[in-house]
């Protein structure tokens, strides 16, 4: 298994990946297609740079303020999309991530408020982080049980959990936002280290770890195998049930981290924090090159996908375009991504899902 499993070919236990006997031209096309999210991103940045220079003589990308703002904006959608990447590669989808994020944000706010007077700020924050991420894991665990043991389709199971997590989060929050009274927590959310916000550092490290987990470990390999061909994976001796259970817990914990960082940044836990981000997270994964049919995708692609969305939304405000164009542009980019994906499969002789 020397090839990376990003090309959508099943990583079967015995079969040689089909790309081995493909000619060089195909491989080149494939490589370019794999990088399409980064190419999109580059094209967008060049486009906005040209626009900024020609319309008002400013610069878009050489302005560190812009880079920083885009990075902060991308944090929450990217964290959700990281968990979502694993789930989508396995052939599933997790619709509950947005409200799991809100649940974690509210739990973190409550725990930190509760613990700060007795334990001091740093311990309370640590406790808040732990409890919030553990609590986020509970709906993930139930999602995992539903999908792996009870054979509920992920779309339906996680949709149900979307409602449950939402209700519980709002109940815990009393229907409103929960302000956090811990200045150190606000510093974590808004402070900087060598000019880069802490939350961007935390996200970067976390995403690299997840990239390693997906691309270099047995867990990641199993994930691709299950998504590409569950029957083959089962015959190859992979314990699909326990894998899926761990998978959904992990994606919920990603959303939990996003929720805690949200509370730190806005100094308040809000149940609806992640609601608008769910579809952005799916979009980031798809733009990043993953197939919704499972079996392909990378974390680095998702990073590019999340930044494509962030750059479009920030850039259009920066060059002062009518706000509704944002929806249109993100939609168009998603459609183009999927078209490229399909064309690539056809061209490389791989499976075409229709």
């Amino acid at each position, binding site marked *: 298994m020397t090839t990376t499993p990003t090309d959508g070919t099943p990583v079967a236990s015995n079969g040689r990946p089909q790309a081995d006997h493909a000619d060089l031209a195909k491989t080149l096309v494939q490589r370019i297609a794999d990088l399409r999210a980064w190419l999109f991103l580059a094209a967008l940045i060049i486009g906005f740079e040209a626009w900024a220079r020609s319309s*008002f003589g*400013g610069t878009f990308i050489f*302005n560190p*303020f*812009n880079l*920083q*703002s*885009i990075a*902060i*904006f991308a944090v*929450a*959608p990217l964290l959700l999309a990281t968990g979502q990447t694993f789930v989508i590669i396995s052939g599933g989808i997790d619709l509950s991530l947005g409200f799991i994020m809100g649940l974690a944000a509210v739990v973190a706010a409550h725990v930190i408020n509760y613990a700060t007077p007795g334990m001091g700020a740093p311990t309370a924050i640590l406790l808040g982080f732990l409890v919030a991420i553990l609590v986020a894991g509970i709906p993930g665990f139930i999602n995992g049980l539903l999908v792996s043991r009870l054979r509920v389709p992920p779309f339906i199971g996680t949709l149900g959990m979307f409602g449950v997590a*939402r209700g519980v989060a*709002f109940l815990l*929050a*009393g*229907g*409103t*936002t*929960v*302000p956090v*009274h811990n200045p150190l927590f*606000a510093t974590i959310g*808004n402070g900087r280290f060598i000019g880069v*916000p802490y939350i961007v550092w935390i996200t970067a490290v976390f995403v690299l770890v997840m990239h390693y987990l997906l691309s270099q470990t047995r867990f990641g390999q199993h994930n691709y195998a299950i998504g590409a061909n569950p029957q083959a994976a089962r015959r190859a001796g992979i314990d699909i049930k326990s894998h899926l259970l761990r998978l959904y817990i992990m994606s919920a914990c990603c959303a939990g981290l996003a929720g805690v960082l*949200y509370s730190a*940044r*806005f*100094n*308040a836990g*809000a*149940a*609806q*924090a992640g609601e*608008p*981000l769910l579809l952005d997270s799916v979009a980031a994964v798809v733009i990043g090159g993953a197939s919704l049919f499972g079996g392909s995708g990378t974390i680095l692609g998702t990073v590019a996908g999340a930044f494509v969305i*962030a750059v479009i*939304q*920030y*850039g259009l*405000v*920066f*060059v*002062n375009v009518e*706000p509704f164009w944002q929806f249109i542009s993100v939609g168009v980019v998603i459609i183009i991504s999927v078209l490229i994906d399909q064309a690539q499969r056809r061209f490389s002789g791989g499976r075409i899902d229709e």
Partner: protein
Amino acid sequence: MKRRSVLKSAAMLAVAASVGLAAVPGHAQDKKYTVALVPGLTTDAFYITMRKGAQAAADALGVELVFQGAPDFNPVLQVPVLDAVIARKPDAILIAPTDTTQLVEPLRKAHDAGIPVITVDTFIGNGKYQTGSGNADFPLSYIASDNVLGGRMAATALANAIGEGGGKVYVSNVKPGISTTDQREEGFKAEMAENHPNITVLETQFNENDANKAASQLQAVFARNSDLKGVFGANLFSALGAGNGVQQAGQTGNVKVVAFDAPTSIIDNINSGLVDVAIAQHPAEIGYYGVVSAFAHLTGNSIPVAIGTGFTVINKDNVGDENVAKYIYSD
């Protein structure tokens, strides 16, 4: 039968009124009225505070209050809730309609069934009721803060905070089509245009109630307009996000933030300096007057077709004052 009992209660109220309002609960025991309150959304401190005011009035009058709504401010979600409420035949409905036109027909069903309708916070049609013209004049009363006035107060507060120099400002808003936030923006722009010529209002940014997006938009607008001096957050998440955007841009104190509504998270931000001014509505009063008006109507009294509740301007100087603190939305 029902009508007769209403008349009877009306007669009783006339007696009770002469004795004094405090005696009403004792006399109203024959017919315990049920009033339904349908908020714009259930998950918002504004409506939760409104419910508290409504409950206070309901307790005082011996009325049963039913509170049912949808988790999002969306007519598609609100109409089924309203239908279910109508099916239970309450004696009156208080509702914050989530759309000026889409809620007209669903509410007419209540009206046709003989259930009086009073709108609170938001309105249907043009908000002018009992005029005999138009198809949306059937509600009895519209009880709300004057959001255009609130927008004007926000503009004045922002202009004062910015001071003599003037500069650029913009409105951070949720999305178009919500009557209250549209009116706040309208009032804000009108006041700026009429009375503050040294302030330029830039194009409005819509954030879909996403604080993350509102923050990013502030940073983008500031990156483009280095002379940005202020922002008006037309609701909670707009203001929370804009305040964070100012902080991330390192412009706290330089770019002024005015927030509409005053839940505790905004008050915390006033204390920490991230938000300069909050325009607090009085949602508890809206709920209180709503229930009292419904009760007065049910007991045969006339009620005003419009009741305006006021605003309180909260800033760092008065936030500790207990006369001001009572207007903070509580959960």
